[in-house]
């Protein structure tokens, strides 16, 4: 497209046609402060902070530069007295209905609204008056404090347009406007998936994860508890951002070291359980395929079950189709079940004295650990879930100098993992990890892709698919000879909805589908550090870091994990009786309006 020429602050500027004034200014090194606008996610013109003066063609009012398209010959002022004063006024009006509890807010010094006040030079609050007061809404995963909300509506954009879940909306009007679920229901009683993408884009402390930091700290200081920790794959490529490092920095060794210094009794790795998941899920897929080939009624496509946001999504929106889900618990839940049974027995501890902490890039995992079906012998499989952000907070609070820690290893044996486990953190990774094992079981040969990457399903497009032909199979898999296995991968609920419509109508062409609830997968999960640059760049960098982790491993196939092989020698077969008792689960029909269940994830406040 042709370029346009315009004058900004007396400077000749060139920008691609179709740019907004804001984009044109940024491209030419002129910074315009903004608040509600979020590149690629939210363009709404709600806050009016980015206003500029349009001299030519003359406009009477100041223009929101994020909304107005830059035109050839335009003359714009972004920093004269009228503009700067207007921005300060706008800011103070927003501030007048904000609770100003900055010192006790968990976004203190990590708040876009706070930083903006400083940037604009705000030095007073001239519009004191009535404030709208709302109760704080706490659920297992998310905490909603409308008193801190500045009505920017980024969360609404993410929830409606990107995730298509549409739980959050702007209700009422004028002074009474509040961002809330329908009928102002507590979010723990809605069809929210708890993906937490709203907490990532919230510029203030209005939407955040429900903290488990106190729960973990109490366990660490309880001499009767044997506290075991496990971080998910995506945490190792996210945690360094909590300490000012750029996106895509891998710090697995420092992560293990930091957890050890925090006082955890055992520093294991969810990756071990990811390898375990491949053994269980791979076996389940093979069983379904075998049944399908011999004329049975195996529900295909089988769909992955690692993402608790995705699980909740399907339970609400497609309750009739739950039999397509793999019955495998998610890896950290499998891990907890193993720790409180097999491992507790091994080290001579009572299961109730074991305390399992998961470090997750995810807010939905908190609700997951409150699900009654994710327990064994009367004990929850996992006792607490910290998001990557919460772990960063705790490391800081404990005075641990993360970036200067030595690189250390995870404890053995449940800290040993393969490259297949690392890629569980990125969209397409679970599928690739499963194929690396399943293909080899059926054919006896390694998956025929360069560097073991199933290239058609690597990437960030919404839906990716591949067909893998099974040839020269092992004799026991004769029935599968020539079968073209069709697979699909998606992340984010917009893509999941498309694939589920096919499944629901009985028209899905696939045998196996991987779904992760957050766009990009766990690397950009709802519990990861908030991006300091364009989310798409962050996603790309973290994805590369995850594949880097995989490629650095000597062993890159789950079934070759020596610790997993040793485990099954004592535990029994994958998919066997004990596995079904501890490592598999079932799902709950919920319905769009929760009409099929009484279960709620509300935490009542005093």
């Amino acid at each position, binding site marked *: 497209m042709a370029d346009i020429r315009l004058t900004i602050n007396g400077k000749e500027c060139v920008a691609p046609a179709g740019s907004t004034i804001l984009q044109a200014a940024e491209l030419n090194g002129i910074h315009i402060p903004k608040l509600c606008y979020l590149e690629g996610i939210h363009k709404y013109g709600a806050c009016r902070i980015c206003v500029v003066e349009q001299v030519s063609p003359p406009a009477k009012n100041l223009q929101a530069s994020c909304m107005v398209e830059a035109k050839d010959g335009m003359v714009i002022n972004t920093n004269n007295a009228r503009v700067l004063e207007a921005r300060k006024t706008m800011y103070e009006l927003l501030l007048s209905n904000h609770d100003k509890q900055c010192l006790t807010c968990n976004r203190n010094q990590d708040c876009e609204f706070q930083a903006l006040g400083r940037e604009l030079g705000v030095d007073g609050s001239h519009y004191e008056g009535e404030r709208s007061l709302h109760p704080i809404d706490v659920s297992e995963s998310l905490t909603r404090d409308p008193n801190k909300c500045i009505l920017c509506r980024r969360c609404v954009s993410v929830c409606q347009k990107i995730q298509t879940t*549409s739980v959050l909306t702007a*209700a009422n009007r004028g002074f009474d406007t509040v961002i809330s679920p329908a009928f102002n229901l507590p979010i723990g009683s809605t069809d929210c998936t708890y993906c937490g993408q709203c907490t990532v884009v919230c510029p203030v402390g209005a939407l955040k994860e429900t903290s488990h930091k106190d729960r973990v700290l109490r366990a660490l200081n309880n001499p009767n508890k044997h506290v075991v920790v496990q971080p998910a794959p995506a945490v190792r490529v996210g945690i360094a951002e909590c300490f000012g490092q750029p996106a895509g920095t891998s710090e697995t060794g420092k992560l293990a070291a930091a957890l050890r210094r925090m006082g955890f009794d055992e520093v294991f790795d969810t990756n071990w359980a990811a390898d375990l998941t491949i053994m269980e899920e791979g076996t389940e897929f093979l069983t379904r395929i075998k049944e399908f080939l011999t004329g049975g009624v195996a529900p295909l496509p089988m769909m992955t079950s690692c993402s608790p946001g995705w699980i909740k999504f399907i339970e609400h929106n497609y309750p009739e189709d739950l039999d397509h889900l793999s019955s495998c618990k998610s890896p950290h839940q499998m891990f907890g079940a193993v720790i409180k049974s097999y491992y507790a027995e091994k080290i001579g501890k009572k299961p109730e004295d074991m305390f399992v902490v998961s470090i997750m890039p995810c807010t939905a995992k908190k609700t997951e650990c409150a699900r009654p079906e994710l327990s064994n012998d009367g004990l929850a499989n996992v006792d607490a879930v910290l998001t990557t952000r919460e772990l960063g907070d705790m490391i800081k609070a404990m005075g641990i100098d993360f970036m200067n820690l030595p690189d250390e290893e995870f404890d053995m044996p449940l800290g040993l993992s393969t490259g297949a486990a690392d890629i569980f953190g990125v969209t397409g990774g679970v599928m690739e990890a499963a194929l690396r094992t399943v293909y080899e079981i059926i054919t006896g040969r390694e998956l025929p892709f360069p560097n073991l990457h199933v290239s058609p399903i690597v990437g960030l497009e919404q839906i990716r698919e591949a067909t893998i032909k099974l040839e020269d199979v092992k004799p026991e898999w004769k029935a599968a000879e020539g079968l073209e296995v069709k697979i699909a991968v998606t992340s984010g609920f917009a893509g999941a909805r498309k694939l589920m419509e096919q499944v629901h109508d009985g028209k899905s062409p696939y045998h196996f589908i991987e779904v992760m609830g957050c766009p990009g997968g766990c690397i950009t999960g709802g519990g990861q550090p908030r991006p300091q640059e364009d989310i798409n760049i962050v996603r790309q960098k973290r994805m590369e870091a995850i594949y880097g982790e995989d490629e650095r491993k000597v062993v890159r196939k789950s079934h070759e994990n020596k610790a997993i092989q040793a485990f099954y020698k004592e535990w029994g077969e994958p998919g066997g009786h004990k596995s079904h008792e501890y490592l598999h689960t079932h799902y709950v029909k919920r319905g769009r309006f929760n009409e099929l269940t009484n279960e709620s994830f509300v935490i009542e406040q005093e």
Partner: protein
Amino acid sequence: MSLSLEKLAFEHDHESQTDEEKYAEIAQVIESYKDKEGSLIMVLHAAQEIYGYLPPELQEFIARKMNIPVSEIHGVVSFYSFFSTQKKGKHTIRMCQGTACYVRGGQKVVDAIKRNLNVEVGCTTEDGQFTFEIVRCIGACGLAPAIMIDDDVYKQVTPAKLKGILSLYEDAEENIEGGADA
């Protein structure tokens, strides 16, 4: 494309309909707007006309039938003061609080209505007789402060006059009920 309000003229007397019949009629309205973009407000108008108000269950019903998120419906219903999520009383009192009525003592009348009927603005009395609403100007500024009860306008209302006005409606109700009994 313009959607005309004329379509909302209904043949049925909604008071005598069962809930099931009302829902069925609302479903028909939704069907008639199928594939027309931007028809939510028209559907909500019709649904309120048929059902009387828009409780959460009805909003969920509409969400399901129109295949749109219930949060979106709630957003629209809660934005426009025309829509009500509470059952309306037999009579609706609309107190004008436009500028003229306000400066000529409208607030005192508001307080008197609240006190006399034990009802908050936007709510319905416990006996289901009256719904109390505030409106901005009913075009009767020369009669300020004015109230409307159903379709009747009352001028220069004071707290002292209020009791007499309200009793007209309470009495009428009793007469009707008495008549039905006899």
